[in-house]
């Protein structure tokens, strides 16, 4: 019996070896995890297309772009605070990522109750985020924002806003369903029988990706 671990190279050589030896490329990586990463890679390209289109229309329009700082301002207790709703949504999504990271950790400890609770907490943060997004959409639609026009300037603002935040919101919503399903399975003990909690980590990858996309949307759409 040959020692598998001893044969493996490290560093740059491992990159060449893993890809060139007609064997399993991603060593010690659950196939589901590799596939999730590849899915996320393709999703990266989808969101990049949205953001690049947005950059293109925003820099090619001759009309002034509506100021996001003002558009997304709220008046709370008589105080006019710029971009506050988006800031709160950002913190909520980061917190959901935090609870998800902890859930993955507790999953590997086979602590089913804590794992499921943390995952439900993550899903709840997700629901809160989507609800705030629904509030934001409602507010803008009532103010007259449409995909083809808005009261403040370049008409492309509406189409970019609805496409980008809508597609992201869809990802969050799907994530909420995904996480709730996995959490229920964790609680039920499905993975205890298999002795394998990588499923939680894979679901976590998806959720962190949703948070990751928001980082870019926050920077490019709301702060530009």
């Amino acid at each position, binding site marked *: 019996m040959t020692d598998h671990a001893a044969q493996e190279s490290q560093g740059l050589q491992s990159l060449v070896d893993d890809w060139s030896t007609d064997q399993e490329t991603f060593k010690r990586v659950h196939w589901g995890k590799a596939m999730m990463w590849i899915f996320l890679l393709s999703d990266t390209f989808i969101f990049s297309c949205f953001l690049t289109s947005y950059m293109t229309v925003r820099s090619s329009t001759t009309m002034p772009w509506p100021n996001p700082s003002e558009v997304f301002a709220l008046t709370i207790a008589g105080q006019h605070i710029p971009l506050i709703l988006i800031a709160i949504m950002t913190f909520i999504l980061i917190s959901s990522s935090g609870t998800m990271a902890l859930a993955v950790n507790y999953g590997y400890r086979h602590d089913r109750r804590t794992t499921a609770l943390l995952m439900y907490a993550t899903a709840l943060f997700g629901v809160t985020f989507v609800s705030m997004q629904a509030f934001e959409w409602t507010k803008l639609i009532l103010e007259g924002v449409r995909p083809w026009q808005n009261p403040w300037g370049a008409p492309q603002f509406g189409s970019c806003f609805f496409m980008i935040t809508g597609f992201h919101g869809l990802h969050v919503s799907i994530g909420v369903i995904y996480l709730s399903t996995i959490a229920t399975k964790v609680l039920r003990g499905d993975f205890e029988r298999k002795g394998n909690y990588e499923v939680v*980590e894979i679901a976590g990858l998806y959720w962190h990706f949703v948070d990751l996309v928001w980082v870019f949307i926050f920077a490019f759409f709301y*702060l530009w």
Partner: protein
Amino acid sequence: MAHEMTEVDTQHALAQTGDGQNASKQGQQHPLGIYFAIWGLLFVLSTFSYLVDYFHFVGFTRWALILTFMWLKAGLIVAVFMHMRWERLALMYAILIPPLLLAVLVGLMSIEADYTYWTRILFFGLLSGQPSHG
């Protein structure tokens, strides 16, 4: 896809299924502290991003700050929350290199946007910010 179960594969499969004790050691297991630290850092960086807007930084300073905080946050999420820093190079490069190609798309589209912008200015005789019709 023909896949022969070699000795190496068998060992791998055994290591993956394993007994209860083994199973708890597989996958990405790290001290909880690091997640709380990253969580906190992300909060701080997001606050900074927000303050960039709040204090009305403009021009180069604004862009430099926004992009710095953005890349730091993205890096922390991918490296620690998504465990990329503990993965092997084969996976790391397979996922992180392809998105770099997007720089080409962004470059091409920004040239295109510039072209469209000046075409509009010249053709419609517009001054920036003055729509010719509603």
